[in-house]
């Protein structure tokens, strides 16, 4: 776009000023690349200041990321338990062995049932004696107080909370059954607890992200004001706002790129640290739990979020301040 016509004799000794649209398009990317590298060089010229902003960005993201890792692990544990729904069916004590045998067979053949386990009262008592710590006290009992128990494991399609509950009611109505129980309360409580933790962590993460945007925005604002004279001169010789803004946007971009990597490293260190204590903790319970770290996908998301926040912060600063600087 030119406002003034140029005389041909003014072009002597040099190429014409007009640049074709295709070339302009290509140059846009060449320019972008140059400015991207240029702003990276700018960062290396002020290493301390840049590093501090980048560290703030990275470490601010580390907390939500680590919390995310914890929540993710908690979810996978609760998901495991979710599928382990079992129904304990306590049989009436006055049944004959023949009747019990028939009932077992009948339940086993139900469509909703994956398999059944039968624990007769003697086996139940033996197990109770072994695990409860009341071993010798039980010997004083005259009769076995325990009923025979049928452990019913629902088929895959009937393991959800509602369906398992429907199966429970069906089983409870059987003549041979004295009572049946499906222990879901603790599962629901665990799920609710996980949700509370998730939500509070999400709120915390949102707060930290906002802080990151403001910090990056402020750093970029200072960078813009520092180069006020330069921006003025560039505007005088015909630079568009977009051209002037680009290096600052790239600065925000690089903050995000490096900040994201810092967030990975810090999260990994934190997870290893927490994991060592979890391994110790779970070994006391004779279990081998361990934390799942960041997956490749998670890392990519963290990186994109970091870059997004860096860009957004610088965009806010650039929008407000670059256009406000007018040549005097």
């Amino acid at each position: 776009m030119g406002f003034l016509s140029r005389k041909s004799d003014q072009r002597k000794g040099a190429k014409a000023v007009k640049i074709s649209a295709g070339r302009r398009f290509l140059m846009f990317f060449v320019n972008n690349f140059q400015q991207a590298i240029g702003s990276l060089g700018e960062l290396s010229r002020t290493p301390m200041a840049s590093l501090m902003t980048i560290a703030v960005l990275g470490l601010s993201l580390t907390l939500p990321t680590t919390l995310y890792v914890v929540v993710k692990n908690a979810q996978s544990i609760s998901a495991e338990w979710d599928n382990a729904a079992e129904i304990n069916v306590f049989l009436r004590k006055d049944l004959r062995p023949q009747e019990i045998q028939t009932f077992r067979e009948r339940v086993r053949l139900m469509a909703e049932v994956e398999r059944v386990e039968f624990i007769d009262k003697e086996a139940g008592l033996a197990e109770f004696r072994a695990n409860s710590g009341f071993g010798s006290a039980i010997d004083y009992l005259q009769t076995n107080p325990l009923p025979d128990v049928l452990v019913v494991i629902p088929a895959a399609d009937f393991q959800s909370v509602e369906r398992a509950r429907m199966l429970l009611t069906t089983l409870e109505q059987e003549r041979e059954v004295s009572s049946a129980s499906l222990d879901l309360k603790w599962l629901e409580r665990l799920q609710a607890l996980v949700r509370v933790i998730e939500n509070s962590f999400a709120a915390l993460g949102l707060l930290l992200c906002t802080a990151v945007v403001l910090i990056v925005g402020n750093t970029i604002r200072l960078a813009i004001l520092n180069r006020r004279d330069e921006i003025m001169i560039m505007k005088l010789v015909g630079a568009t706002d977009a051209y002037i803004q680009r290096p600052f946007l790239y600065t925000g971009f690089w903050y995000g790129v490096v900040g994201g990597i810092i967030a990975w490293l810090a999260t990994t260190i934190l997870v290893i640290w927490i994991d060592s204590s979890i391994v110790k903790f779970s070994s006391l319970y004779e279990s081998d739990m361990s934390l799942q770290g960041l997956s490749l996908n998670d890392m990519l998301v963290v990186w994109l979020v970091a870059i997004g926040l860096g860009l957004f912060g610088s965009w806010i600063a650039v929008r407000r301040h670059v256009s406000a600087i007018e040549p005097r």
Partner: protein
Amino acid sequence: MIRFEQVSKTYPGGFQALNRVNFQVAAGELAFLTGHSGAGKSTLLRLVALMERPTLGRVLINGHDLNKINRRQIPYLRRDIGMIFQDHRLLMDKTVFDNVALPLYIEGYTQSEARKRVQAALDKVGLGGQERKYPIMLSGGEQQRVGIARAIVNKPPLLLADEPTGNLDPTLSLEIMNLFESFHQVGVSVLIATHDLALVARMRHRNLVLRNGAMIDDGLASGGYEPLDEGAY
């Protein structure tokens, strides 16, 4: 090339810098703009480069009404106007080469593509071979010439100069003026604001005179040449 129609400019606070100014500068013409300090010379140039908007009236550049040019179009207008300032306005942390190449970079040239034109511009102002230096290593006159090289590097059809010789001794001033004259000879329109009346008299070109914001002489009556007349101020 430049036409002012009843242009007034009042700054916030009530100071009237220009009052109903009318004049016209033809394409390819070289004209001086003189007047006492505060007469409105800078304001007039700033209106042409759209660093200010007129309060009343219209400014036309090559037939384009500047009142109709919106904020987003201003950069493209400025690319067609070479501007030279008394304080040079150079980037002190960039080399002479990068300073001169700045308008070309903005238009999308790479460094290697800009080289030929930058060298041509620097040769023109007599600074060939100084590309690698920083402005701080140059004298005031040389810095001014870097500013001129930057203004002409993309061959704009219009040059505006605001006190280009303000800080220079008479010999250097004359050299700079001769430079402007050479641009005028290849068809560039040049408008130079200055208070160096001796120099203006010597150059024998049209002289527009401002006093207290009013144009008291558009230089046409005197046949494009305003003789040294201290009484006018």
